[in-house]
């Protein structure tokens, strides 16, 4: 828009000095800061949620795998050796009789190293005959209850109840890694 009775050089000078006021600037900076804080907070929450989910999935997958492996092995066994098993304690042991071999499940202590720090955990493991024991749970998992109960009646095929509680290893007690799950099931010998 042309300014009446104003020379051109004056008009151009006036355009140059037009800009934000201090108040506008303060409002602008406040909004930008607010958005940045909210965004960072959400991103942080998402990162935390992802870690939490990962921990939850880890404990759930390990629980399912461990219980499935034990119940399947009980079904296929010839017998349960009550003499060589340990029932009704939180760190139980199950010895299954197979033709020519035993299969043993237990949850002994194992020391693992996390970020240069030694951490004591219990690992669920299987020993198949003469072979070396193999871990059934990962290094991220601590077995806090592996209880076996013999619910066999009379001379009938053995029935074993299994209680399993596991948690994610969390030496720094960080809430993001706090994940724990417990479940119970039972299995009978089929023979």
């Amino acid at each position: 828009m042309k300014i009446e009775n104003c020379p051109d050089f004056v008009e151009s000078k006036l355009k140059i000095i037009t800009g934000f006021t201090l108040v506008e600037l303060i409002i602008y900076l406040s909004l930008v800061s607010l958005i940045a804080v909210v965004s960072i907070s959400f991103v942080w929450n998402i990162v935390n949620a992802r870690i939490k989910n990962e921990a939850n999935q880890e404990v759930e997958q390990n629980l399912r795998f461990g219980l499935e492996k034990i119940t399947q092995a009980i079904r296929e066994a010839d017998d349960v050796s009550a003499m060589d098993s340990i029932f009704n304690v939180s760190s139980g042991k199950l010895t299954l009789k197979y033709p020519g071999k035993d299969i043993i499940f237990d949850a002994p202590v194992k020391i693992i190293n996390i970020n240069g720090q030694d951490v004591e955990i219990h690992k669920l493991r299987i020993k198949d005959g003469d072979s070396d024991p193999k871990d059934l749970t990962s290094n991220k998992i601590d077995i806090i209850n592996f209880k076996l109960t013999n619910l066999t009646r009379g001379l009938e095929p053995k029935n074993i109840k299994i209680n399993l509680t596991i948690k994610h290893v969390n030496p720094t007690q960080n809430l993001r890694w706090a994940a724990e799950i417990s479940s119970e099931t039972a299995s009978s010998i089929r023979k």
Partner: protein
Amino acid sequence: MIAAALITLTLGSYQSNFQAAQETKASHLAGEGIEAARAIKNYNWENLTNGSHGLTYANGFWEFQGSLENIGPYAREIIIESLSRQNNFCGLLPGQDVIDPDIKKVISKITWKSVSSKPRITELVSYLSNWTNPVKTRCSKCELYEISSVVEFGADTVLDWSGKDVVIKPGGHLKADSKNNPISLTITTNCSLIIEDGGKITAEGALSNGNGGVINITASEVKIVGTISANGYSLEPIGLSANGGSINIEATDLNIPVTGKMRAWGYTFSPSTNSLGGIATVKTTNFNHQGEISVDALNVQSASEKPDAGTINIECQELVNSGKINANTYGRHGRAGIIKIKTANASSNNTNITVDSWGITGVAVGGKISLSANRLNILNSSVSAIDIKNNKKPGIITLIYCGKDFTGATFNPTPIEIVSCP
């Protein structure tokens, strides 16, 4: 909008993780319920009563208690239902025809509330059967024909029961007994003949010098849980004999469980009497034998003459044997009988095959046993053909095979072994 989306995503992720964990626990509890029902069934089939049940193991074993069980936020219900079959027992279809007493449907139902308070259900279904001690398992296109009373025949009789599954129930008795003249009873069916425990088919001589008769059976499947006998009996007068008759069975499948008996004895208390053992002949494809087949001569008076035991002939494809097969004699001059078993594969365990003579005179002699199979397994068993009192005139045991396993078996006398491969 972006914030709302992010919040929804975050919370949704938490929720789905929590629900997955709940589902996992519920499926484990449901599996435990099925296994508990199986344990209850294993102890006593009758405990698997229809209806909804809770579970307890307070007494150290699984039991039903109440109609529901609460485990934390979960409720577990074991539902037992009967199943019916079609008349011929071949199809397993709910709601039809006849209830099968040997099978139950077991539903392990877990209910709980999700994070959003919605009711959630996990169910596992299994079918448990009373296979160890079935009340009644029948799959046949034949009509069921049950005999529960005594049916007597006074002359030679032919019974054509084609199209019928004949079941001789406890107390049921097909009786072709005669006082003097042996008579025959012939049963034919293209279906099955089952003699239940307590059921009988007899063609016996009466208790005074009566010879045993003849029993002929032709069927697709024969199961003898009770008794078939063609015994001869003699009490009076002196000198008249009573020989065992003959039993002939032809079937695709023959099953003689542990209580089953197939006897053609010559049986006398009279002095100076010869009562000879009879004949038992079996022709079958599959023969599962746990009971007793005997054609003994049981002359218990010391004055008896030459009570020779009878003959047993078995021809089949597959023999699984853990029963007794005997052609022994118990008279003082007795000569034991003959047992011939010819089969493609024979597997015997804890069996007793004897043709022994218990006679006390020099005439007493062991009998003959001939066992022939492509694969002949005789484990932990006794096979003997000897004269027990004198131990002077043993009989002969002949074993003909291509492959063998005689672990834990005793033979007396030492057998003649012939290796013959096809």
